């Protein structure tokens, strides 16, 4: 016999069951849409995965190619320098030869002059107007022969000097090898970094068939925070090295010199007394730099009796008014060091 209380409970459960069915009816379409979405996305994910794997397999090869480029560039550069060295040697030989010819020429001229004098002395004894003597005198005339010879030697020396300058310029231009080498190293570093990052993404999708890449990536991850990479030799690079190739090289050095001067003037003659602690305290942190900047106004008002630290601080503040990432020229550096 069902009691009223039991009947009420049964009805309540029925209501709950009904609500569950209603919820199911509403959820099923959503789940169906979700299944369709996953079914559509899966091939795309597979494609992405395959693409990443393909690219990843190419990166080590690209790295080797970069290494070969750097090695070949270095080899070629050294071959060119061998040639330039040989050219320098040949120019020195030529220089010596010219001097030798010059010496011999003057000696010959002196001998000829002496021969003419001797001949004249002999001819004056009754044999005037000898055509050979007239011709010799004409050829040895200072206004023609000497002038030509001097011009020839001066021109040769000028050419030699120019060739020396050219050779020196070629040698200096080859500094590009060092700079491009650093740039290639930076590119390689990027590739290695991307390789490591991609691998970490891949391992989330798929943990098989990538053991070798994973090992390489792990080794790379140990180094990605350091500006160093291994091509045909280990290269520690300046990622901004290529900046030196553009613009006015002389101006770049001048800017550096100016900065050096402006910083160094603050040290003045008492640089020896400035301890590393003083300098460290001044340059150690941005907070310290801020403090230095605040002191600058006061420091610039104190001419005599200014401490070394304050002097450095003053100059440092001048240099710090611009972004520290600014390129400076050699003039800035010269200016800085000239006061040492």
């Amino acid at each position, binding site marked *: 016999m069902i009691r009223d209380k039991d009947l009420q409970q049964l009805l309540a459960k029925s209501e709950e069951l009904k609500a569950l069915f209603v919820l199911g009816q509403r959820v099923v379409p959503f789940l169906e849409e979700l299944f369709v979405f996953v079914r559509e996305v899966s091939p795309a994910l597979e494609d992405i995965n395959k693409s990443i794997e393909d690219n990843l397999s190419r990166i080590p090869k690209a790295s080797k190619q970069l290494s070969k480029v750097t090695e070949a560039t270095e080899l070629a550069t050294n071959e060119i320098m061998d040639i330039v060295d040989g050219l320098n040697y040949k120019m020195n030989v030529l220089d010596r030869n010219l001097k030798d010819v010059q010496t011999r020429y003057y000696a010959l001229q002196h001998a000829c002059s002496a021969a003419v004098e001797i001949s004249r002395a002999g001819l004056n004894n009754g044999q005037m107007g000898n055509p050979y003597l007239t011709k010799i005198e004409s050829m040895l005339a200072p206004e023609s022969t000497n002038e030509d010879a001097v011009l020839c030697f001066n021109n040769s020396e000028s050419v030699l000097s120019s060739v020396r300058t050219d050779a020196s310029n070629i040698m200096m231009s080859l500094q590009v090898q*060092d700079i491009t080498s650093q740039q290639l190293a930076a590119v390689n570093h990027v590739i290695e970094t991307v390789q490591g990052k991609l691998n970490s993404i891949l391992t989330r999708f798929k943990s098989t068939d990538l053991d070798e890449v994973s090992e390489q990536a792990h080794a790379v991850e140990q180094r990605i925070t350091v500006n160093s990479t291994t091509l045909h030799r280990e290269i520690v690079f300046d990622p901004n090295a290529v900046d030196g190739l553009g613009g006015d090289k002389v101006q770049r050095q001048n800017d550096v010199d100016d900065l050096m001067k402006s910083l160094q003037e603050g040290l003045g003659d008492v640089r020896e007394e400035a301890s590393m602690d003083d300098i460290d305290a001044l340059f150690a942190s941005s907070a310290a730099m801020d403090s230095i900047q605040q002191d600058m106004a006061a420091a610039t008002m104190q001419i005599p009796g200014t401490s070394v630290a304050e002097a450095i601080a003053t100059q440092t503040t001048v240099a710090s008014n611009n972004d520290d990432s600014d390129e400076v020229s050699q003039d800035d550096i010269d200016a800085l060091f000239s006061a040492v």
Partner: protein
Amino acid sequence: MRFLVVDDSPTMRRIVVNALQTFGWDQIVEAQDGQEALSKLKEHPVEFVITDWNMPVMTGLELTKAIRSDGTLAKLPVLMVTTRGLKQDIIEALQAKVNNYVVKPFTPQILKEKIDTVLQTMAA
């Protein structure tokens, strides 16, 4: 005068050596990193150090600091020759007490000028 040229790039070492020889300085010792440079300094009497900054094992900056902290080497003139031309780099070089600073690429004349400047300053 005997020079020590420190650079990990054989090309750059050769360029610097060539420039020095052009000006008649032909007593030159070479090292490929800071650590080797310190070893060479113990072996050879050197009167002037020209060093790159970016090098494996030990950088030019670390080499300069090591020289300055060594009682027998502390007064050795050090010229930094580097591609690094940022203001912060110059400040770091000053902190390490380099005697002068040249940015690559440089001309032989600039190199000589800086060497002469350092030598004159040291002699004063």
